């Protein structure tokens, strides 16, 4: 039997026979392992109904206990007889309702001690005005004390907030006392001949307009992604750790890697198996929701009483798809990077924590999907799920969220495939780059370093007290973006001249920049309006941003210095300097301009600024690539910001909605680029268009 293996497969995800074989092997191995089946399948099936049952049971218990609860109280102080009569009146007025006949007087000599020892739930201390002043003076907690009734006697309800009965009793008693007081005051006033005209008073009432569905949906929506993520991580991690890390341990990885299957096929098959498990878990949960809540099999009590329609269930499922893919990818990546089963198990808790953290986003009060959270994978879907359950969905944001998490999943998958090509991960050796350090290692690590920089920038920006704009800019832009390139250059022993592209461009370039910068500003403004058309930005947000950025107390020349010159220099050193240098061989020129531009955009945390700044980033990268120098980009960036600040401070509106401005600015921009192109001295050491393999190096036979 003669046969030749077919030509090398392209690295795309396809369902080849090898992929199906691996998928079959993984699923078969999973189903034959009792423990894994228990953790991956049985537990997730049971957990959600168990949670509903528990919640329902706890709710019943709570209601039952509340109905049966009595509040033991005592009255102390000089005026106790009067207070006691009030308490009697409370009991008498609510006498018909059995549930409210729950204040039980208890006789005690030392009410304070009895409260501490839980013999009492609360007591009312009646105080003369003088006694009240003493209490106020002795108050160590600095409580806000009302003083409009100065001179009146005070009933002080003392309770112990660590005990439910005490807390609730105090709340109820205060309500009742207030009612009684109001009623007495009114009747006293009427009795004294005070003319009460109904038109002179207003009654305050509150009504909640949210439907039960929205309230309960908000409650369940907050938990749902967290629960699902927890179960997926639990179930799929058993499979994931067993697959690559486990195979390194057992020695089956070498067997697998010496078959004709490509690395892409191996990863595809394994990823599909993990996705299948995670998907099954997600599906089970959503079916659970529909079966138990939708069909009302379990009365989940007031906790999670949400109406789940098939449409809602299906929408949730679709929304969860990228989360499933990303979670599976991250688990497989963890497994691929672990050098042994044990290492995978060691790293896993950190991964589980890291993946669960973003699912807590919906717990943040009033976090809207229409904010930067839209761009955080998993967190965005979690917020979207909450919105979906409340019934308030913003379609475009949800789509962006879905796509962002999906893109993250794709990226992680690509990393998995690369990990199988990385022989250091298979043999456990140190790579040449890691061993030698220096510029080669930087090219490998550049993305990682920028992720850290992004995190640092987030921390700095959100924790910086913005008292003085100048200080804020100096720290969050000046120091961060100046220190970063310097640290990178020092750590990786880069040549500053090369890393920062410190070369002189040809003179023509400057003319191009002088023309291009204003044109680019107008074009970017137009792009911003175009985006506003697609995804409207609240005007108050923009205005507020403008006010923060340009307070009227700072002179214009200082604004130009801090908002134009400082960022113009240091941001260029970071992005068109070290970032471009680090990525230069990873993409072609067009890809480089796009990637560097978009990364630059992501460093502007107000979501509405990302598109315009990314566009500026693309332009600046293109200028640097064409001129081989960072200086034109510095000038362009400074001019761009300076013009924007100057015009903004002068209150000049430009562009407006006129299409002529747009067309004119684009034409001028094109002219500027043509001039720069004419005087170009391209960025050195870029990736060559064709892979650099010598053709004469082939098999001579």
């Amino acid at each position, binding site marked *: 039997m003669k046969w030749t293996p077919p030509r090398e497969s392209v690295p795309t995800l396809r369902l080849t026979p090898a992929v199906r074989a691996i998928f079959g092997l993984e699923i078969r191995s999973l189903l034959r392992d009792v423990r894994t089946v228990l953790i991956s399948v049985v537990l997730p099936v049971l957990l959600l109904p168990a949670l509903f049952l528990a919640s329902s049971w706890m709710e019943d218990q709570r209601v039952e206990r509340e109905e049966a609860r009595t509040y033991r109280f005592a009255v102390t102080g000089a005026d106790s007889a009067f207070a006691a009569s009030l308490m009697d009146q409370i009991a008498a007025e609510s006498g018909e309702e059995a549930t409210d006949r729950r204040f039980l007087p208890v006789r005690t000599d030392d009410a304070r001690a009895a409260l501490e020892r839980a013999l009492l739930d609360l007591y009312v201390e009646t105080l003369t005005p003088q006694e009240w002043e003493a209490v106020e003076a002795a108050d160590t907690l600095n409580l806000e004390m009302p003083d409009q009734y100065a001179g009146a006697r005070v009933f002080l309800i003392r309770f112990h907030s660590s005990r439910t009965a005490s807390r609730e009793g105090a709340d109820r008693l205060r309500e009742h006392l207030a009612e009684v007081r109001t009623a007495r005051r009114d009747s006293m006033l009427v009795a004294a001949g005070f003319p009460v005209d109904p038109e002179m008073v207003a009654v305050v009432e509150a009504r909640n307009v949210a439907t039960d569905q929205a309230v309960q949906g908000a409650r369940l929506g907050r938990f749902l992604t967290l629960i699902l993520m927890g179960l997926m991580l639990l179930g799929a991690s058993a499979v994931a750790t067993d697959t690559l890390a486990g195979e390194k341990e057992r020695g089956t990885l*070498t067997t697998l890697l*010496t078959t*004709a*299957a490509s690395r892409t096929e191996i990863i595809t098959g394994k990823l599909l198996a993990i996705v299948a498990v995670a998907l099954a878990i997600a599906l089970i949960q959503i079916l659970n929701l529909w079966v138990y809540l939708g069909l009302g099999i379990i009365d989940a009590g007031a906790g999670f009483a949400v109406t789940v329609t098939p449409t809602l269930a299906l929408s949730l499922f679709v929304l969860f798809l990228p989360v499933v893919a990303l979670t599976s990818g991250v688990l497989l990546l963890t497994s691929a990077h672990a050098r042994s089963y044990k290492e995978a198990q060691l790293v896993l808790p950190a991964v589980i924590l890291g993946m669960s953290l973003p699912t807590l986003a919906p717990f943040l009060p009033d976090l809207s999907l229409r904010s930067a959270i839209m761009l955080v994978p998993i967190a965005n879907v979690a917020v979207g799920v909450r919105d979906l359950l409340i019934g308030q969905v913003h379609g475009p944001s949800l789509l962006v969220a879905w796509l962002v998490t999906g893109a993250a999943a794709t990226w992680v998958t690509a990393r998995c495939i690369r990990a199988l090509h990385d*022989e250091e991960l298979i*043999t456990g*050796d*140190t790579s040449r780059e890691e061993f030698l350090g220096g510029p080669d290692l930087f090219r490998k690590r550049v993305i990682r370093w920028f992720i850290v920089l992004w995190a640092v920038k987030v921390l700095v920006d959100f924790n910086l007290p913005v008292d003085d704009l100048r200080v804020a800019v100096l720290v969050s832009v000046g120091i961060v973006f100046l220190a970063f390139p310097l640290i990178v250059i020092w750590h990786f022993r880069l040549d500053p001249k090369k890393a920062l592209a410190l070369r002189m461009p040809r003179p023509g370039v400057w003319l191009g920049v002088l023309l291009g910068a204003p044109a680019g500003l107008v074009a970017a403004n137009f792009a911003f309006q175009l985006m506003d058309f697609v995804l409207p930005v609240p005007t108050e947000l923009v205005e507020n941003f403008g006010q923060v950025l340009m307070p009227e107390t700072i002179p214009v020349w200082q604004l130009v210095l801090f908002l134009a010159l400082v960022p113009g220099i240091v941001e260029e050193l970071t992005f068109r300097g070290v970032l471009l240098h680090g990525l230069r061989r990873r993409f072609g020129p067009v890809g480089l301009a796009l990637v560097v531009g978009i990364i630059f955009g992501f460093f502007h945390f107000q979501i509405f600024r990302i598109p315009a700044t990314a566009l500026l980033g693309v332009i600046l990268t293109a200028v640097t690539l064409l001129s081989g120098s960072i200086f034109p980009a510095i000038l362009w960036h400074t001019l761009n910001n300076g013009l924007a600040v100057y015009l903004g401070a002068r209150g000049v509106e430009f562009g407006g909605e006129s299409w002529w401005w747009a067309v004119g600015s684009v034409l001028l921009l094109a002219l500027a680029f043509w001039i720069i192109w004419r005087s170009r001295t391209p960025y050195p050491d870029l990736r060559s268009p064709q892979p650099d393999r010598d053709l004469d190096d082939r098999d001579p036979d």
Partner: protein
Amino acid sequence: MNKPPVRTQGLTKVFYDDNRGEVRAVDQVDLTCQKGEILGLLGANGAGKTTTLRMLSTVLQPTAGRAWVMGHEVRDEPERVRGSLGFYSASTALYPKITPRETLRFFARMNRYPSDQVDDRVEELVRRFRIQDYADTRVEKLSSGMKQKVSIARTVVHDPPVLIFDEPTVALDVLNAIELRQFISQLRGEGKAILFSTHIMSEAEQLCDRIAIIHHGEILATGTLDELRETTGLHYLEEIFVRYAQVDDPVQAARENLR
């Protein structure tokens, strides 16, 4: 015309070790292996045998040099290279949760064996290796001898023209080792090109048609046992090895190697 199934040219692999620094594990290795020939790679632990064979099976990428298996270059057409060879070593294990039949079927599909012929091929191997009795028992329940048979059947399931055995007898007991050597001889009879690495002199003497002595990543000599005897004037392979490796004190050398 008579193109050797396996050929390497200046094959080199450099590792970077945190303790030892730059290590040339394999240095400028030129080898050929013909049809129906067993080429023995003889060397101490850490001499570069496994690294050479791993580069040939495309698990590792050469730092420099080239290697061809059935005319396919290891870097240009890694999947075709792997499809043309069967790789067996002490570290190539089997999946515990599946049966021998499933194992063979799995690896046939992984090696792109024509899908309509997979079942026939699997049954043929089950008969040939006499694994009928436990062909449907999970691998995790088999004895080591049974596992070994399944492993060998797995190595040849796609009927590759080239076979690589990397210290296959290291973990085996005497009888299993004898059985394995017999089988390798059979494969030679079928016209396979076989690379066989070992550090056991007697094994190399007995089994290999030609022997390449590898030491510190370099091939010091290649030839039949008779040729090696003639060049050195020595009889025993062990003496010949020591002469080539210029190891005056083998114990001292072993200690250095361990470091």
